[in-house]
């Protein structure tokens, strides 16, 4: 894939950081405002797709390491399963941190309230794990497919 024009490259370099920040905002505030791990991860992955469309496959491969993203994906899934196993004293997926006063353990107000990030117990941590998994999974899928398309093109040019 060829690079796009200088104007598009400059504007997308400017917006890339904001898209990633917005995605992580959606992930971290998933238990207070609409959103969550899946949605925020897909928003971050859309920033990767923007890079891929604008800069082409070769330049994006220098910036985003597929092996590192693959490792992050496995880490996210294992972290999620480990967090689920942590509550095994009572049951699988038992939320033992909520209302406990510890990490993310504030007791929430029932009814309409402005929202408190430090509530929810295991849920924000699980959302971080799922967000990490989704963003790196989508990134790996996009990068690997574009790499396959690039190598098919090379083979055709050779023959």
């Amino acid at each position, binding site marked *: 894939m060829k690079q796009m024009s200088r104007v598009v490259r400059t504007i997308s370099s400017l917006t890339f950081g904001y898209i990633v920040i917005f995605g992580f905002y959606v992930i971290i505030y998933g238990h207070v405002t609409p959103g*969550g791990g*899946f949605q925020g991860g897909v928003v971050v992955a859309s920033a990767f797709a923007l890079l891929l469309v604008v800069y082409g496959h070769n330049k994006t491969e220098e910036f985003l390491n597929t092996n590192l993203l693959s490792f992050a994906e496995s880490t996210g899934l294992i972290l999620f399963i480990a967090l689920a196993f942590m509550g095994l004293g009572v049951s699988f997926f038992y939320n033992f941190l909520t209302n406990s006063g510890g990490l993310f353990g504030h007791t929430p107000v029932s009814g309409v309230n402005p929202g408190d990030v430090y509530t929810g117990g295991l*849920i924000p941590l699980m959302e971080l794990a799922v967000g990490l*998994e989704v963003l790196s*999974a989508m990134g790996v899928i996009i990068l690997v497919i574009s*790499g*396959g398309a690039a190598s098919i093109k090379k083979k055709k040019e050779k023959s």
Partner: protein
Amino acid sequence: MKKTFFAVALILLFAFLMTIAIQMRLFGEPVASQMDDYFIENVQAETGVNNVVTGILFDYRGFDTLGEATVLFTAVVGVTVVFKGALK
């Protein structure tokens, strides 16, 4: 012959869909609402999150989310096998 058959089938399908659309309940008024009321009343006290959807997805239906994450992992494995294995 074929045209009349398709016309009759189309009219029957249209009538079927229209009857369903007319008989459909209004949006937000389900037949049984006990489950919804329970979730809306107890999510904040039991799970400690304001977002009811997140409370259901990550606490009441944790297994469902685990399955979704596993499906995504399997998709990545499949794509990697197809595109990295076949094109070397």
